[in-house]
């Protein structure tokens, strides 16, 4: 079955970069987008993505808060925090939430790291 990736980022440029790179590496994946945490939570309920890349610093709900909300309704989706906030505290928060952490910029190498995590056996 076709895998579905949800990109969550308030920056349309970042979404464009991530989408472009994912599409190049995994042309069979369906890619959908959300511009904030609220949208992301709603889309997880409606679209049931297999994978999510999640920015942290967004208007309204932060990426970490969005992950907590998502986990209330979905425990299976693999999530990668993809952020410029590379403070130790941010990495620790990702660890507490049992999600993977990849630092921006969203280069091909960074996106590949996220995909490697998604495709790794659970």
């Amino acid at each position: 079955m076709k895998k579905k990736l949800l990109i969550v980022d308030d920056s349309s440029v970042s979404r464009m970069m991530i989408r472009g790179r994912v599409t190049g590496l995994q042309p069979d994946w369906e890619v959908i987008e959300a511009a904030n945490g609220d949208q992301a939570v709603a889309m997880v309920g409606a679209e049931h993505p297999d994978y999510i890349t999640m920015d942290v610093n967004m208007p309204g709900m932060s990426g970490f808060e969005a992950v907590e909300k998502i986990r209330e309704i979905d425990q299976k989706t693999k999530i990668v925090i993809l952020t410029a906030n590379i403070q130790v505290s941010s990495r620790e928060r990702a660890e507490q939430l049992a999600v993977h952490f990849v630092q921006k910029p969203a280069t091909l190498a960074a996106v590949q790291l996220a995909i490697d995590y998604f495709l790794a056996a659970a």
Partner: protein
Amino acid sequence: MKLSALGLDALAEIFNHGVGQAGLALSELAGEEVQLSVPKIEELSKRAITDQMDARGANRVCAVRQGFSGVINTEALLMFPVDQSLQLVQLMVGNEFPLEQLSEMEQESLAEVGNILLNSVVSSVADMLHIEFEGTLPQVELGLAGDVMGAGEGLDDLILSLQINFSIASRQLQGYLVFLLDVASSEMLEKKIATFIESMA
């Protein structure tokens, strides 16, 4: 802020590490090596910074502003001459996206470049001083350097200025990072630096 020579040296070392992280992020974006100058840290007035930028013919600047709060509150500004903004956009998204798409996204691209660079520096400072910052969303502003820094208020007040020059083989870019700190935050930064120096001894 009244930092001793040792304190200023420690601050330079902390920022140097952060700028190194920012340089790494830039080189990942550019796909080539980025040459970075050693950051020049000074306590300067907004007027002095404006004068320096004017002297370089960069009185009109493009700035990315981002607030960071925690035990220390600061407003960080990445400023660069306005004619370099398109080069930064190209650096951000590379050549794989069509030009018309780029111009539509110029502001957002600049915001994202600023977000990555400012967060690289601030995250490094946070980790080395064992503090935590919460960042606001990056805002892009265009205008005279003095106006962008809010020169109307306290033109001669001293602020912490970190000047870096960066160059990439294909592009010459020059940027200023400026951190605006209130009095309480300046005092807290002094204390944190003193603790950092003690931990090194």
